[in-house]
């Protein structure tokens, strides 16, 4: 009788219930939590280690790769920045990535507007097709583009890369901009139209500032999608024009020196800075 009574009071007071069950299970729980924490710690270590290990390796003094590195030197960075082949590949990739960012951001934003806010025939088919380059194996796309570009002399060519990377980068823009447009309240645009703005003014003054974080995020993703892209770039590069990805691939395959670690560190730092910038922009928007 008395146990029943305590039981029912427990049921009625969730705070008490929580406290009691916590007191009873504290050991079992601590044990489980410890195991879970160890497993998750190992997984996070596994995720992060190969990404960050290139940084100490790039600072090594030795001509071959060793870990832990002995000594400290910047000679591999000097080697990278003074090698005309690496510099040519870097500038080539940078030019392509910037042009791709502009093209993909504009094309992707326009298409997102048409899909979310427009009356577009075959809208869902277009959406599926636009995401295709993310799903179709990049090796297939690389071989296919080589096949078409090669007779047109578009391999190793700025415009060839621009076409290929724009197709690859536009889905990232469309995903972020579509999401931003779906969060945007169209009533705001209607209010602007009611107040006498035309469509273009309403877009530039009302819609664009509101979806700007999505557009900016899409632009950053587009830049990285182009700059870090390696598979398609591997196939459409040639002697005349080589992307940094192709150059890295060749050197990893044939000539494994710590210069690659220095180049990798530069790429990691660029990615981290861009991702950090997006994060800060989003946090500011929210805060």
């Amino acid at each position, binding site marked *: 009788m008395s146990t029943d009574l305590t039981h029912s009071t427990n049921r009625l007071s969730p705070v008490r219930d929580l406290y009691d069950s916590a007191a009873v299970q504290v050991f079992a729980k601590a044990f489980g939590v410890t195991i879970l924490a160890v497993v998750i710690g190992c997984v996070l270590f596994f995720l992060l*280690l*190969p*990404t960050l290990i290139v940084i100490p390796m790039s600072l090594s003094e030795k001509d071959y790769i060793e870990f832990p590195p002995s000594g400290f030197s910047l000679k591999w960075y000097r080697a990278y920045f003074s090698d005309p082949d690496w510099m040519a590949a870097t500038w080539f990739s940078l030019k392509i990535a910037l042009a791709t960012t502009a093209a993909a951001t504009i094309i992707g934003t326009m298409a997102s507007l048409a899909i979310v806010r427009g*009356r577009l025939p075959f809208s869902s088919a277009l959406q599926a097709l636009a995401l295709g380059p993310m799903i*179709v194996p990049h090796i297939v796309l690389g071989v*296919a583009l080589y096949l078409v570009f090669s007779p047109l002399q578009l391999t190793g060519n700025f415009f060839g890369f621009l076409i290929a990377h*724009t197709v690859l980068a536009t889905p990232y823009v469309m995903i972020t901009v579509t999401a931003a447009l779906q969060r945007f309240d169209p009533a705001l645009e*209607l209010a602007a139209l009611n107040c006498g703005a035309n469509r273009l003014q309403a877009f530039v003054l009302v819609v664009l500032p509101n979806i700007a974080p999505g557009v900016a995020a899409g632009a950053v993703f587009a830049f990285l999608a182009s700059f870090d892209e390696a598979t398609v770039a591997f196939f459409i590069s040639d002697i005349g024009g080589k992307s940094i990805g192709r150059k890295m691939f060749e050197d990893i395959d044939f000539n494994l020196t710590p210069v690659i670690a220095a180049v990798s560190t530069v790429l990691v730092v660029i990615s981290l800075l861009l991702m950090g910038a997006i994060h800060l922009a989003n946090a500011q928007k929210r805060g």
Partner: protein
Amino acid sequence: MSGPSEVPQPAFPRQRRSSAASARFYSRGVSVCLAAPLVVALAIGFVYPVTRLVGLSFEGGSLEQYRRLVAEPLYLGVLASTVKVAVVVTIASLLLGFPVAYLMARLRHGIAMVVAACVFIPLWTSVLVRSYAWVVLLQRNGIVNTLLADAGITDGPMKLIYTQGAVIVAMTHVLMPFMILPIYSTLRTLPPDYNRAARNLGAGAFRAFISITLPLSLPGVFAGSVLCFVLALGFYITPALVGGPGSMLMATLIGQQTTVLLDWPFAAALSTVLLTVTLIFVFLFRKTLSLSKGLHSVH
């Protein structure tokens, strides 16, 4: 989205509503103009090249290339091991990634951000950088071999790199974020009340997880698994650098046919097979992989 029948519609604002609705959407002409650059880009950079490639595999209207593919056990073996590696990588990513996604969804904001950074940093680091790191880690006198020998586990350096095991480990590392993020975005939308209710009704932590949290997280699990599997099927860079002749996959076989043997029609046939397998999968699981759950959560 509630249908119009569910909403009581007053008679008078009807006209205003329809004019508002028409201003809400761009006209058909404007819409088509906005979408036109994308259509052009996709046509010249995606649809036409892929169509040409598929066409090349049927060169002269014959199935010769496909006959070669089926007749040679080596090629069918490569196809089988491609599917096998993709399955193993997907399962490994799921088993390792689920606890991380769970933690990200449950922790306080500050710590969850640290965990999220551990997932996002590799995701947005070049695949080349990560494959290079694995080459260095696994090579003959690399870190893993040194550590194993120093710990007395092995006598001398083992052959780690250029094996199928190396390909699986490196691909799991590269693809795991694509598993974690869809699961995380599903778990995050689960109200913690469900779990609390189960606990209040007497379920232990484990029981509550098995009968409440796990079933409700399945959409994310499926989305992540399909994404991981499809990406693993066509992966090139990592198996090309970390794998060897004994661990050939479809993508590396296509690479070999085009860069070494220059057998373009056969490479086209292999590409068509890889493309078809991928598209069948995507089509079968298109609901699972829908924009909101699969690709979307990768950001």
